[in-house]
């Protein structure tokens, strides 16, 4: 079935219908979620009662609290942003160092370490969360019981969430940055060194600018992955719940259009971030 092999009309029609159905399947849940963020009814379902912005802006005086007056959700949003910031920072930094390690340095046991680097991708997210909880939180418990030393850092909370997410996001950012470094011509760096640059200067003026698009790409991906992650996060979170966990708790109590409002905001946010990065890299 390639372009140069003749196909029947019927087959073409069926194929196109299949494609259409597929893209409807992809878009429908998100479209529906977005549309019901503006329905003037207390429950996200038909019939359509008219357009409203209450689920964003209502201040609670008429029995409706919009997203921008909902302190619980806004706090959760802030917690998520904080976590995503640290995860992005650490993962991208690790990704850069790892990329150089695996692409530019020769050493014994490299093949084995590369497999170790890929390992977090084949461990389910829940297990990553559980193992970190057992190790660090267990250590905090033992320390407290044995010597009365309180390691609150290792109790469930933001630090553990960041650690859990970095575990697998660092692998992804390493892969993205390493793929770009592989295409780099080392002669450019050698030229800089011949012209009198120190290795550090050559790295910052020649290699790093070449890597920059992939660094931005990896950062955007890390931020989104962290923001959206649930499986690892839910095991490690403490009293300061990030957005996905807060939304999940709300959803269990019953759905309101405020959830749709948050969902739409998240979709727009990630779409903008994706477009920004793509715009940068295509230039």
């Amino acid at each position, binding site marked *: *079935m*390639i*372009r140069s*092999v003749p196909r029947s009309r019927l087959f073409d029609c069926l*194929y196109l219908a*299949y494609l259409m159905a*597929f*893209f409807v399947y*992809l*878009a*429908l*849940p*998100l479209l*529906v*979620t977005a549309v*019901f963020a503006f329905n003037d009814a207390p*429950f*996200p*379902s038909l*019939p359509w009662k008219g357009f409203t912005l209450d689920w964003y802006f209502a201040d609670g005086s008429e029995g409706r609290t919009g997203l921008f007056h909902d302190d619980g959700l806004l706090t959760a949003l802030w917690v998520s942003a904080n976590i995503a910031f640290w995860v992005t920072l650490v993962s991208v930094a*690790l990704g850069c*160092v790892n990329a150089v390690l695996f692409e530019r*340095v020769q*050493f014994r046991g490299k*093949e084995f370490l*590369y*497999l*170790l*680097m*890929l*390992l977090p*991708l*084949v*461990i*389910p997210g*829940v*297990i990553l969360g*559980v*193992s970190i*909880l*057992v*190790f660090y939180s*267990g250590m905090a418990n033992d320390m407290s019981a044995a010597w009365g030393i309180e390691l609150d850092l290792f109790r469930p909370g933001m630090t553990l969430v960041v*650690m*859990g997410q*970095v*575990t697998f996001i660092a692998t992804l950012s390493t*892969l993205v940055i390493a793929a770009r470094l592989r295409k780099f011509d080392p002669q450019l760096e050698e030229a800089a060194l011949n012209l009198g640059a120190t290795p550090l200067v050559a790295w910052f003026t020649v290699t790093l600018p070449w890597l920059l698009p992939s660094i931005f790409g990896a950062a955007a991906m890390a931020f*989104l992955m962290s923001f*959206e*992650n649930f*499986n690892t996060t*839910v*095991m490690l979170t403490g009293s300061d719940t990030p957005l*996905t966990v807060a939304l999940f708790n709300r*959803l269990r109590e019953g759905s309101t259009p405020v*959830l749709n409002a948050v*969902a739409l905001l998240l*979709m727009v946010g*990630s779409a903008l971030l994706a477009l920004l990065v793509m715009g940068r890299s295509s230039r």
Partner: protein
Amino acid sequence: MRSSVSRLSLWLLLTPFLLWIVLLVLLPHLQMLRVSFQVRESWDTIAWGIEQYQNFFTESYYWRTFVRTGVMSLFTTFLTLIIAFPIAWYIARLARGRSKGILFLACLIPFWASELVRTYGWMILLRESGLFSSWIQALGWVDGPVEMLYNDVAVIIGLVYNGLLFMVVPLVTTLDGMDENLVEAGYDLGGGHGTVLREIVVPWAMPGIVSGCIVVFMLTLGSYLTPVLMGGKDSAWFTEQIFTQFITRFNWEQGAALGVLLLVLSSVIVWLGLKISGQSLRKVMG
């Protein structure tokens, strides 16, 4: 002098990597394995034993859910592959120019929203007061509201939806690099559609197929939100039980044992998949 400098820089590069792998991956997993063999006799005495693993095999609820989760994950992965393959083929081989890029980007749509939002969207569509129910009532096909959520079909719809992106992207990437002359040669030598697909296209796309399947399988097996929110009372998922042991019952020893079992299951299936298809993890993931 030169070698000691390069040795120093090697260690400088190696340190962050080792810290990450040892502190966040190896030690925590070893500790989880250790805890899973601990038996709590009273509040401060711990013995070694395999009680947690015995519980798993004697309580039929545990291993039934375990088997169910594994089988349903495999089925979901297979279904995702079947659904995604024609789409990837169209994008890689039949679409041209702008439409190719646009279609590819359209496949990334679900990635704009988190798993929670995607599941929520399906809940709005499928539940008793949902859109599908309203629509078929409006068409006059049924009299009362229809509940389409809270069953296994709903769970699979949601899981396939979550996995599609991770299947389409590697498939498009490998199919894009295929030489069309191979396919033409296949037809010229008298092969039918089935033969060409089986003998030429699938072997060529194997790295993409394996990589997509591994990722989708891992995601499905480890997913929590979709089965919990969309499944009924009979469609328990294994991650749910791990969660219950840790968060609700504070029974870390049992939870760790269940976690180890899930990890073993996923590793064995990924390893089998690589062996059967003759691929290596490095080629497929790196």
